């Protein structure tokens, strides 16, 4: 009997059932003679009559798809006699749940990194203007009031406007201290994290690189450096503000500067007088020279 496709061999279904395979055999296109196992599986699960019932009310294009799904389902049932496709679906649900949990964890970690970077950027921008206020604030004003050119500028700046400097100090202190506090907190967290990572890596003989382990090691190194910088800045700032914290010492220093300012005025007057005298002398010299002629 000829099949659709031009071969004279009976289809696997007709071969199994030992029947004549006509040209109108409905199962011939789907069960080729060289694949007997496919039909055996389908026959075992569904049976020929049930397969034909399923195909009966479908369109030709749908019949092809339906047969493919029937063959697939039968093969899975042959592989897994107890659970079949239901077991595959349960496994897939489990994999999806695991992947979603892992994705959620990675997303939360990514958010943490993002917040950390934003905090780094904001702390750097906050530190810059405060240092400017401390180091460069009104040196000309300081000189004009006290008139002492050899007085160090930052110290003058501090003594001239203690209120503003306290304000700027508080700003910088808050920025630096909060940054330091956070860094110390992160540092503590990261140190635990690093220890935990080292413990796991020590226990784990696997050579596969764990991205989370790599990240923790990389992150742990950063806040340590930041914390050291903040501590250094704090040490530099601190002795300057010991003077303004003590009011009596400030008053005493002010009196000292006032007295020293009087002396400096005298010096300037003397210098001006000397300059005027020199000019007179030079003018006189010119006069004498011309008079000779």
């Amino acid at each position, binding site marked *: 009997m000829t099949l659709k496709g031009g071969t004279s061999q009976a289809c696997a279904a007709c071969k199994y059932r030992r029947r004549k395979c006509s040209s109108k055999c409905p199962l011939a296109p789907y069960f080729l003679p060289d694949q007997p196992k496919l039909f055996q599986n389908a026959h075992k699960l569904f049976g020929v009559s049930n397969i034909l019932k399923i195909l009966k009310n479908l369109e030709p294009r749908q019949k092809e798809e*339906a047969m493919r*799904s029937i063959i697939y*389902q039968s093969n899975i049932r042959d592989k897994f006699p*107890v659970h079949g496709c239901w077991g595959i*679906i349960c496994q897939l649900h489990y994999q999806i749940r695991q*992947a979603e949990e*892992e994705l959620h964890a990675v997303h939360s970690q990514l958010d943490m990194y993002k917040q950390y970077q934003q905090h780094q950027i904001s702390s750097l921008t906050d530190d810059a203007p405060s240092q400017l206020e401390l180091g460069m604030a009104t040196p000309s004003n300081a000189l004009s009031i006290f008139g002492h050119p050899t007085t160090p500028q930052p110290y003058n700046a501090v003594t001239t406007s203690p209120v503003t400097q306290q304000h700027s100090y508080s700003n910088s202190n808050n920025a630096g201290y909060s940054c330091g506090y956070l860094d110390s907190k992160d540092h503590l967290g990261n140190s635990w994290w690093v220890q935990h990572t080292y413990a796991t890596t020590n226990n784990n003989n696997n050579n596969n690189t764990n991205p989370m382990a*790599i990240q923790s090691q990389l992150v742990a190194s950063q806040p340590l450096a930041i914390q050291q910088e903040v501590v250094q800045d704090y040490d530099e700032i601190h002795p300057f503000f010991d003077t303004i914290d003590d009011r009596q010492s400030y008053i005493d220093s002010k009196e000292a500067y006032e007295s020293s300012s009087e002396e400096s005025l005298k010096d300037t007057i003397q210098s001006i007088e000397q300059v005027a005298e020199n000019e007179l002398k030079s003018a006189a010299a010119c006069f004498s020279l011309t008079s000779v002629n």
Partner: protein
Amino acid sequence: MASSSYSNSPCAACKFLRRKCLPDCIFAPYFPPEEPQKFANVHKIFGASNVSKLLNEVLPHQREDAVNSLAYEAEARMKDPVYGCVGAISVLQRQVIRLQKELDATNADLIRYACNEMPPTSFGRSSRMGHGGSSSSASYDQNSALYYPPPWNNDAQERGDHGSI
């Protein structure tokens, strides 16, 4: 597990088949008379004789799971005569592959943040639902032992999702 063999009422299978429910009825423990639709679906799709043969081939403690899986597949085939439960498998496998791709991309972003690099439009990439082969997907691609590819590749995607469960 309901056991109608200890009661006078026949099991759902014997009721449907209109036969005497014997004490050693293989269907009785798994098809209680309170759930007639369960056996009706299984019988319509697979046939009582096939189910009986299948149950005899598995161990007694596995029979309940086997019956439940057959009932699930039968109901799926009733709802969707073309794809049955295979449609759900196809949808779930695509979802797994998509999640794995998203996971790979997010892990790559995480590593870049850890190295103090700003990822370019990383969050737009994670929300994209793309399909197609990716060499980065490790656990859920064709090389995985847990991957059971459905009998079609992209034809079902072109026709749209057909999960009926």
